[in-house]
């Protein structure tokens, strides 16, 4: 009987370990990965000079912290989770002149399906996406203006489940 008592006690203590903390090693909701390629030589990566991206939310423009005039050939951008469309302004040769953004600008329209994936009671869920549409212009603007610096795009992976590979190629 004493044995049974101690057994119950030990197991009670064991079962009380906390699972209410979301570990930092857990993968977060993946971002859309875009890689930039040379329009004349479509196998070669090409840097975009002074790239800046604004997110458009309810008519408001928000400059992305990490992409604010950098020169790079690949970017990760988070998608909007409260609706299945995200809109962006992609600036090339970006600079701010007297508090006004300056450069060559293209509108990016991204449409997707959202899938919720359960992670844990502490982290909640993450979203995965199925890319439906990726357009270098605003489809609701009529007539659609031609792209200014983006000459083409290819969707490489529709499913955005991780950040291990590029999802979209942009040629310029």
């Amino acid at each position, binding site marked *: 009987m004493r044995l049974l008592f101690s057994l119950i006690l030990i197991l009670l203590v064991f079962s009380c370990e906390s699972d209410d903390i979301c570990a930092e090693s857990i993968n977060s909701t993946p971002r859309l990965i875009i890689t930039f390629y040379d329009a004349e030589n479509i196998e070669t990566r090409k840097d975009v000079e002074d790239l800046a991206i604004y*997110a458009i939310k309810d008519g408001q423009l928000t400059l992305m912290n990490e992409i604010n005039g950098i020169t790079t050939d690949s970017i990760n*951008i988070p998608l909007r989770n409260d609706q299945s469309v995200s809109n962006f302004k992609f600036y090339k040769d970006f600079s701010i002149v007297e508090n006004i953004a300056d450069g060559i600008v293209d509108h990016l329209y991204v449409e997707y399906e959202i899938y919720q994936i359960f992670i844990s009671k502490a982290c909640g869920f993450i979203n995965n996406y199925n890319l439906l549409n990726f357009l270098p212009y605003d489809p609701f603007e009529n007539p659609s203006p031609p792209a200014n610096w983006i000459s083409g795009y290819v969707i490489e992976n529709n499913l955005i489940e991780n950040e291990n590979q590029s999802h979209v190629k942009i040629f310029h």
Partner: protein
Amino acid sequence: MLKYFISTLVTLSCIVIETNATVSNDSLKKFGIRIGTDLQKIIRSASSQEYNGISFNADIRFKESIFMFSEIGNEKKIVEYSSIDSEISGNYIKLGLQFKLNKDIIGLRNLIYSSFGLGISSFNQTILRYNIYNIYSDLWGEFTNTDAINLENLNANWIEIGFGVKTEILNNLFLGIELQLKNLIYQKNKNDIANFYIPGFNRTYESSNFGTGFNYSLTYLIPIIKK
């Protein structure tokens, strides 16, 4: 639920009738079905907005120191974590054996026992609210989804060992406390979403199959044989 309760009683009464003939040489002084309820569930239901539950139990002595027991119950529970709120509701049944550990003292009918049983639960879970875990939420803002996710026809089985005491507070009326340790054998999940609570099993843990529980039971012994 009443249906289960009645059928449990009927099953147990059949056993009484069956064992009647065989125990005639036994030294049992009093024999009968003990039926009761878990006071802890009633108190929690009254005091907590997040919990509603009731259970009935019955046991019958069929050997000098062995009892057969059954418990049926219904529970509804809302669990709230930082990232998820969920509501679970369903029924359960437990069946098992209790082994008397103490010797009888004349004039006292206290019982110290350990038990071994099997639990079966059938339940539904509704995820009421959940956060989308996103470390890059500074761009678009945090997002909490309040579209409910309904997960229906879930079930689980577990084994349970228990340790308890029962003491007679009035003639044939017993008050008891029991501690339980449970181990899940099987559970059905939907959409890979964890069952945060299982009626009869209680809270679940992500890292193990163990569960714990206790009850305060009030039981009445219906005497059938008095020798």
